């Protein structure tokens, strides 16, 4: 496996080698190749952001020629589909996207400056949770995962969601990440009953439980949660093996009900940062083109076939990096 210290920015020569010798148009996933003429493309030629936008390719061959000749620093394509992509006119639909960037996830056990094996793996675990919820709760099936170079893009193309507006997308994000603490008191005809989220094994309470479990199991003594002081954090760390065994009731008792409430409130408010919600609600976003080179870290942006077993350090490292050693 390649070591992270070899993943330094790619030189213009290396970019040329990558696009001319290693890259193949067949690596562009079908979900993009089949709709290439409906999408806007954008390019960054010098490493200062995608300034060359509104590019359109009538077929994959034209894209292939462009990439092999121009060997850009970065290549992007829209999540949106247009009748007239050159002017970003007549928007027809957009993929629903979740962007999980390893350097921005709120709880990282590694404390590295940029990204490393540990936080990339944590990003992968978060993605697995998101996909479960998309499938099991929202019933979505046409889901593609892309390793972006520093994290993952989850791209959903089910017809049910590609036409929905930003407001609906924003609600989906909140549901998926567990951004709100579920109610725990319910009124029946003559009584009130209390169900904590962890006794409800379905629906949103169950999503929330999964996200809280993930967060608690990834906290460390330096973690920062709203309203959670050092003493409480220490107790959470002490008793968290109970959560590993799903002994939630006992965990809550050990922590104390009021303090438990503080912990879940803190996690809920932090959960909005699990994904970059701006990306999810943007109907005209451009995202890194799968198969293109992330020149800043010398990694391939690549479609992930099996997220459970995916290892970016084995599957997303271009050949030229191995020759740097």
């Amino acid at each position, binding site marked *: 496996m390649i070591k992270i210290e070899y993943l330094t920015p790619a030189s213009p020569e290396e970019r040329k080698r990558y696009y001319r010798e290693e890259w193949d148009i067949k690596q562009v996933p079908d979900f993009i190749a089949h709709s290439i003429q409906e999408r806007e493309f954008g390019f960054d030629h010098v490493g200062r952001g995608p300034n060359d936008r509104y590019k359109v390719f009538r077929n994959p061959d034209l894209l292939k020629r462009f990439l092999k000749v121009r060997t850009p620093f970065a290549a992007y394509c829209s999540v949106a589909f247009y009748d007239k992509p050159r002017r970003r006119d007549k928007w027809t639909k957009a993929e629903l996207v979740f962007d999980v960037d390893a350097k921005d996830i709120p709880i990282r056990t590694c404390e590295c400056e940029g990204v490393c094996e540990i936080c990339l793996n944590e990003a992968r675990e978060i993605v697995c949770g998101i996909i479960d919820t998309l499938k099991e709760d929202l019933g979505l099936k046409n889901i593609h995962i892309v390793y972006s170079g520093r994290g993952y893009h989850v791209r959903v193309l089910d017809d049910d969601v590609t036409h*929905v507006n930003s407001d609906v997308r924003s609600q989906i994000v909140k549901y998926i990440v567990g951004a709100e603490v579920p109610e725990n008191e319910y009124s029946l005809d003559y009584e009130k009953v209390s169900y904590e989220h962890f006794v409800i094994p379905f629906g949103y309470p169950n999503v929330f439980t999964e996200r809280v479990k993930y967060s608690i199991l990834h906290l460390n003594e330096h973690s920062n949660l709203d309203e959670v002081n050092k003493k409480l954090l220490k107790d959470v760390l002490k008793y968290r093996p109970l959560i590993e065994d799903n002994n939630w009731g006992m965990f809550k008792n050990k922590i104390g009900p009021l303090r438990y409430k503080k912990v879940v409130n803190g996690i809920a408010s932090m959960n909005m940062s699990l994904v970059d919600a701006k990306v999810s609600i943007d109907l005209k976003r451009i995202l890194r083109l799968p198969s293109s080179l992330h020149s800043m870290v010398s990694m391939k942006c690549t479609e992930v076939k099996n997220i459970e077993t995916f290892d970016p350090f084995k599957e997303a490292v271009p050949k030229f990096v191995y020759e740097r050693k």
Partner: protein
Amino acid sequence: MVSVAFINPLSDEGEIIVRELGDFGRVLSDNDDLMQIVTGSRSQEISNDSFIPRNYVDLAIKRIEWFVKKKNDRNFDNNQYDFLFNTEILKFDVIAFYLLCQAVGVKYGPNSRESRVMVESQGKLIEYRLEKLSKNVREEVVTNILNSLISSTHIKWTFFEDLISTKKLKLQDLILDQGEIVLDKDDFLERFSHKIHGRKPEKMYEALIGDRIKELVMIKMVMQNTENYILKVGEKSDREIEPNPILLELADKISDVLAASVRSYGIGGSYRGNVKASALNPKAFPPCVKKVMEGMKSGGRNDAIIMFLTPFISYARLYPSVFSENITKQISDIDPSLSIVQNEVLPLIFEAAERCTPPLFEDQPQDKVNLNAKLGFGMHQDPDLKNEGETIWYTPMSCEKVKIHLPSLCKPDENCKKIGNPLSYYNMMIWKVRKEAKTESTTDNKE
């Protein structure tokens, strides 16, 4: 049995009632049958003639008045409006509902305050009407209406896209499984019984879904359909040459009721109606603004300073009542020489930008242009009247947007619970500060 039209005027029964009205001109004529039902309502207050609607248009206005007063008036007396809960009023009530929707649709359209109030009032009316029914009747009515609104037993969550988009329903309120919303008890038991341990599945169904969620879904669907109907009326009226004068007159009366409520209670509370532009008081800033003022780290700097702080500071200083007045203005309408912008607004924003790590405009000087653009002065380096209007003066982000764009900023305090926009927080706190100062000075004077 209560007619479903009493709860959902847009039902088939409701439409039949409208078709039976006959001459439209009758809506302004005194109607003895109506007055008899009103005065005969069990707890109806009849000590004053003004409590009794005399015709359909009067009744329509009473519907709105009930909602506005119930929401805002501490001394509200429900007995003045008891007739609204008398099922005998059905036929008159349905016509009044359609009159209101049409008046609002024709004159104000779906994106107006009048439309919002109409839709919300219908939702509240349904809630209170249901409360007055016995449990069995209530269940039956709700089930009947739901069955007429939802044809399939397998409901995809995307069926409620409109409700979710307009935030009438939150996805979290619903129990979702494999893309479907679970409402039916047997369906629930079939899907989840085997997963539930140590609790009775039936009881869990009653708590999590039961009548509560069914009613919620039904009410929100009727509200959404009301909004859609207003939209349809609005679109149709755009194609027509002259709207009916009775509807226009009713529309004016609705507006008068709302204006009177603003004068008496303020919009949605007692402080927002009176906010005047004045020097900024940083002590009244909400926690999110205070956080940005302390400076941001690399990553969130740009959005925090340009997208969030710039609109907030400029509106808080120049036009704090933008949301209650709901009139689009340019900065020069309030600050013709731009002296306040130059001397009070920009320095605060630049200070916050300077406190960022690294200072925002040092490594991204082009962002000054973006800042200028958010104030409405186009893509230029400095604000200049000749460029005003090239871009729009951005209104402050709502709390909802802050959570999406800048989640790390949102650390709500107790006062945040009552508001949906940081600017409303500021206005509320300013009002509180002034009120306290007034009380202090009165006490001082007495001493």
